[in-house]
């Protein structure tokens, strides 16, 4: 009984995880993480530049992945560990990708049990498109 209660406590407060789909690949995203689908990222030198860019920001949790950044060139995405208190501005993430010379197709941020998907609109401006509450699995379409 005690173990059961501890398990319930764990899934209620301490564990928030979901899945997103990038280029037909399902990717796990956990609390305080972001996943960026990047256009044009075709080589390891591209990935190096992106890693260098994020290493100079103040919102990356360098204890996750490799210095806070994981790059999947096959599925063309970058996964970021975010500092718990950062409440990161999505524009800052986009700026780092653009400074590396690439474009963002979509961006997912999971913080405070809220998974938000951002996509570029017709003018190329990043907008929140969908929202999911990972604590109760409710989905909302925003645009």
């Amino acid at each position, binding site marked *: 009984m005690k173990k059961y209660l501890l398990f319930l406590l764990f899934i209620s407060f301490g564990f928030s995880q979901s899945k997103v789909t990038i*280029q037909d690949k399902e990717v796990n995203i956990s609390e305080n993480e972001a996943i960026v689908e990047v*256009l*044009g990222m*075709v*080589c*390891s*030198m591209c*990935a*190096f*530049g*992106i890693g*260098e*860019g994020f290493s100079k920001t103040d919102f990356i949790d360098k204890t996750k992945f490799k210095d806070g950044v994981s*790059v*999947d*060139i*096959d599925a*063309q995405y970058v996964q970021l560990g975010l500092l718990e208190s950062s409440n990161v501005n999505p524009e800052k993430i986009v700026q780092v990708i*653009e*400074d*590396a*010379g*690439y*474009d963002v*197709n979509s961006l997912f941020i999971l913080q405070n049990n809220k998974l938000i998907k951002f996509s570029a609109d017709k003018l190329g401006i990043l907008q929140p498109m969908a929202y999911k509450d990972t604590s109760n699995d409710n989905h909302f379409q925003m645009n």
Partner: protein
Amino acid sequence: MLRIFLALIIFFSSISAHPVIFKNGKVFWITQNPNFNDIRFGISKTSDWLIGGRILEDRKSNETFALINNNFLAKRWNKSNSQANLYLLSSVGLNTDNSKGMSTLGIHADWENRQFMVMEMVEYFSHSSALVSNTRFAYSPYKVDYSRMSTWLIAQYRIEYKDEEYSYMFIPVVRFFKGNYLFELGSNGDDTFASFMTHF
């Protein structure tokens, strides 16, 4: 007007792999080909403009030049799994022996995905009045993630127009890169090509 246009291009523009890199990224690059020994160091002030220094030695005339080079990314097309680029390239400086002025002016276009690459670069060298075209077709036999070494097989075709004569050269090149290091080696039996580049 044409002179002003050319001067502007020279001011805002160099040569080969990715001539402009990520913002505040630095590049060190050394190349030896049948015509030149070329050493460069540059910094990308933005994601579309790199400025740097270059020591260029003409192996045929034994002249050495100290140059400032500018590379300008005129247009980039980022697509899912591919990228295409158009660059304006230039260098301007002096002959280290007699301080005579020298400049290069070029244009570079490329398209690549993770297995194929096409590149065309045309460059003019003022000291020899030579116009040089380099064309590359490249193929990578396997795809790797960025932690492993990537290999490319490159067919490089060079045409030089100088003194109203054309000369032609074909060199097969193999490229290796891993992380932020790139190394290329080529030979056609008569001529050799070698290049090393790193970003940091």
